[in-house]
């Protein structure tokens, strides 16, 4: 499809849908617009396009076909948070909770509350933590909630601590969200050989200013920090709290838990490890769990059960609560899917998920290392990886001039996705592949074959890769000034019309 921008489809007079007018009401109330004072009444209608229904449908259907979802693709090139299979049956359940209002009387939402209550119980088992909230609308918001709890905790104790420690291969938001909460962020780098965060650097970093630590493990390199308990101990001894970024816990559910590692809190992205689909980037849930001692700091409300009334209810009575990080109780459809997914797998199934994710990842890593010239892993001295691997194409770049971004664009020609963003580029020319448990060996092989072909091209016909894509939906964007020059950037159609007269 060469589908136009929706405004270009406009044809004056066409209608996509009509609004229900109740003529009986209309007769009763007459001209309602005059109830609004003249100066608050909209004079010029918004310049939205006018399009008939079928054409609107067609437009967005075509755009959907120009998008590769995990349902269509072998999506292992996302990395750091590869989407797994989200069972279609879960969408049936989601459709049953669409029309629930958050302020309905508790008696009328017992099913919804029960699911939240039980998913909390499940996650307690999986993490070893003691209480979960589903309010954060994504991983970054969950990190922000952890930072908020750390602040509230020290404030309550009358301590003035303002430093948060993280590691460079933890998610960018592990640094960014605490900074928003007013913390100074100290970043620990890894041992250059093993890629494992440097415990000496941590020891040097902690102090009476240390409010806490927020880290992922395994990190985005796929490397698991084996001394994580020691890390937590060091922070605890310094008086800080330890927050675990378990956004992606896919390689370790049932294998290792926040509690045994020594964390005080942590979160899981339900739209990841627990299989809720990503919807192009949310809505989502970062399910936030804490130890008993921190329960009173959680955002309100949490779900409780009153055995006397035999009723699940929303409990707002958390004396130290940070308040809220998002209105209402979380993105409930995501909670429903995660609950259903765990119910479909059970204890052994969850462990199998982790094990196969790790097996798949190691299989892919070994194939790439053995068979693809120019590809290497980050910290090649350490081949132990859990659920993903950050690769480095430094050698390819040096030898051919073809870099990570070129390979990414060329993979699009094969109908595959590889994700660009692994900033800052500590690992030169980085690519991250995380296969999850959802793909068969045949599919992993298919992906690797495509990658192999692109690397072959890089050596034999580098222009093909550098000028890619050739047969994807669109072609290469070379002029990046439209993204950085205030005179050119066109963040909306109206700006494009203003700045470029609607011409490319």
């Amino acid at each position: 499809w060469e589908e136009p921008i929706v405004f270009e489809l406009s044809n004056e007079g066409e209608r996509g849908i009509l609004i229900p007018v109740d003529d009986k009401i209309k007769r009763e109330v007459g001209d309602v617009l005059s109830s609004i004072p003249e100066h608050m009444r909209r004079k010029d209608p918004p310049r939205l396009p006018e399009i008939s229904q079928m054409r609107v449908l067609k437009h967005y259907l075509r755009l959907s076909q120009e998008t590769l979802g995990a349902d269509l693709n072998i999506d292992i090139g996302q990395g750091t948070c590869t989407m797994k299979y989200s069972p279609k049956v879960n969408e049936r359940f989601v459709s049953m909770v669409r029309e629930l209002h958050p302020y309905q009387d508790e008696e009328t939402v017992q099913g919804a509350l029960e699911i939240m209550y039980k998913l909390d119980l499940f996650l307690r088992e999986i993490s070893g933590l003691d209480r979960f909230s589903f309010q954060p609308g994504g991983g970054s918001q969950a990190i922000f909630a952890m930072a908020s709890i750390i602040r509230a905790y020290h404030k309550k104790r009358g301590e003035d601590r303002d430093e948060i420690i993280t590691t460079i291969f933890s998610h960018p938001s592990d640094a960014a969200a605490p900074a928003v909460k007013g913390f100074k962020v100290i970043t620990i780098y890894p041992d250059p050989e093993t890629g494992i965060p440097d415990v000496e650097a941590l020891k040097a970093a902690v102090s009476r200013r240390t409010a806490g630590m927020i880290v992922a493990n395994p990190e985005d390199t796929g490397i698991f920090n084996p001394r994580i308990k020691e890390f937590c101990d060091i922070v605890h001894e310094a008086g800080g709290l330890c927050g675990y970024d378990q956004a992606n816990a896919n390689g370790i559910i049932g294998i290792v838990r926040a509690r045994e590692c020594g964390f005080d809190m942590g979160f899981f992205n339900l739209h990841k490890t627990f299989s809720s689909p990503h919807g192009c980037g949310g809505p989502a849930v970062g399910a936030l769990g804490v130890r008993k001692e921190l329960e009173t700091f959680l955002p309100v409300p949490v779900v409780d059960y009153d055995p006397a009334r035999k009723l699940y209810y929303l409990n707002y009575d958390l004396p130290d609560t940070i308040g809220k990080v998002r209105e209402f109780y979380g993105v409930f459809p995501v909670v429903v899917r995660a609950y259903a997914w765990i119910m479909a797998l059970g204890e052994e199934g969850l462990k199998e998920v982790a094990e196969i994710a790790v097996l798949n990842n190691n299989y892919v890593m070994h194939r790439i290392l053995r068979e693809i010239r120019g590809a290497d892993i980050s910290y090649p001295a350490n081949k132990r990886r859990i659920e993903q691997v950050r690769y480095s194409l430094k050698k390819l770049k040096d030898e051919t001039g073809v870099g990570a971004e070129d390979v990414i664009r060329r993979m699009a020609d094969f109908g595959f996705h590889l994700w660009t963003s692994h900033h800052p580029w500590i690992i030169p020319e980085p690519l991250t592949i995380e296969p999850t448990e959802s793909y068969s060996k045949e599919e992993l092989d298919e992906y690797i074959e495509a990658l192999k072909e692109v690397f072959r091209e890089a050596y034999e016909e580098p222009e093909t890769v550098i000028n890619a894509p050739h047969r994807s939906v669109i072609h290469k964007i070379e002029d990046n000034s439209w993204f950085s020059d205030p005179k050119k950037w066109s963040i909306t159609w109206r700006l494009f019309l203003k700045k470029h007269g609607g011409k490319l």
Partner: protein
Amino acid sequence: MSHPYIPNSVERVKREMLSYIGVSSIEELYASIPEEIRFRGKMNLPEPLKSEYELYRHMREILSRNITCEDYLCFKGGGTWPHYVPAICDEIAGRAEFLTAYAGDPYEDHGRWQALFEFESLMAELVDMDVVTVPIYSWGHAAGTAMRMAHRINGRREVIIPRTISPERFLVINNYVDPALKLIKVDYDRETGMIDLEDLKRKISRETAAVYLENPSYLGFIETGGKEICEIAHDSGAICIVGVDPSSLGVLEPPSHYGADITVGDLQPLGIHMNFGGGLGGFLATRDEEKFIREIPYRMFGLAKTVKEVEYGFGDVLFERTSFEKREKAKEFVGTAAASHGIIAAVYLSLLGPKGIRELGEAILQRSMYAMKVLSSIDGVKAPKFRAPHFKEFVVEFPERKSVEEINKELLKEGIFGGIDLRKHFPELGNSALYCFTEVHMKEDIDKLADALKRILG
């Protein structure tokens, strides 16, 4: 037996892969996890429902313990409102491609980029501002960001907000701006609900980073003094932020027309199901002015040209602002938020067009005004409580002889979810509830409510 969700759980395949890797068991692949922290226990989880049918049956059973707003009549709003969701919104939201896509690049996920660019562009027309970002978590979060932007722009540390703000939203903003900013509530006129301009003038100062107001307000009245408030704010060097319900913008002036520098709000009314409060999606709009744009923490998708002529491409504008690039040096943070709600809102606005959005506003006004008429005809009921123009919601004050709580319990028996009880957060409003009327309420529904209330109060 291999699980349908895990293809390589087939034993033969496992062995093949292990042998390729050169290890004898999966356990060996976990060698980097020390035994002392290994979890060797059994998680206490229910027996799995492996067959899809059993799972379906279980879920249907548990979910049948809910009563939905299609089963009962719902007159609750307050941040999540009952609206009609066109079938095409569901169709597009449910498309496997959009549903299961994540962070695809501009090439292989062109459709996703275009859809979100169109979201930005359509919202820009609705609020009549040049720049709109990719959607964020919720109105509350977007408002918090707008205040932090103001703080970064003018370095000040106080924000004035109306006392009539939604209690939910207040808690979100309050935690989000802490500790950078202090929120100061400005009082309201007890007659009209509007911001007390005198109090505003008293509280505004050289420390005021921003003044925030909402239109329509949480309590449903239209803040008609927007222009004056923005002027007061600007006069003292503060930035003016307005939160808005987008479903009102076919009939109400967009805040940019009376002085807003940043407009925020929620997308839920634009074709997104209530989802027990999970239907939120925040938006943030501002002028095409570098000072503002460089302080936006969220992603902005911009149009670009490709090497092929006459072909639209898309990419991130000023990506280096974001935490993806800059970690703690970034403008706040950005992550998975509410992209698919943005796509749905784009579909919704494309369907409605300029006439539809205006008719929607009119339809809502008609319902609310009709409801005022029939409810206020009930003995002792004051509807609306405030002498002001309203949109979608208004405060209904009931006679003291029955509390809102009791009234709502009795309404429930008649299959009606009554208005939100305001006594906890707004005790000064007496025995009052916040009622919501939208295009989904036909005359028979409102009459049913009125009849029930007559019986209950009579």
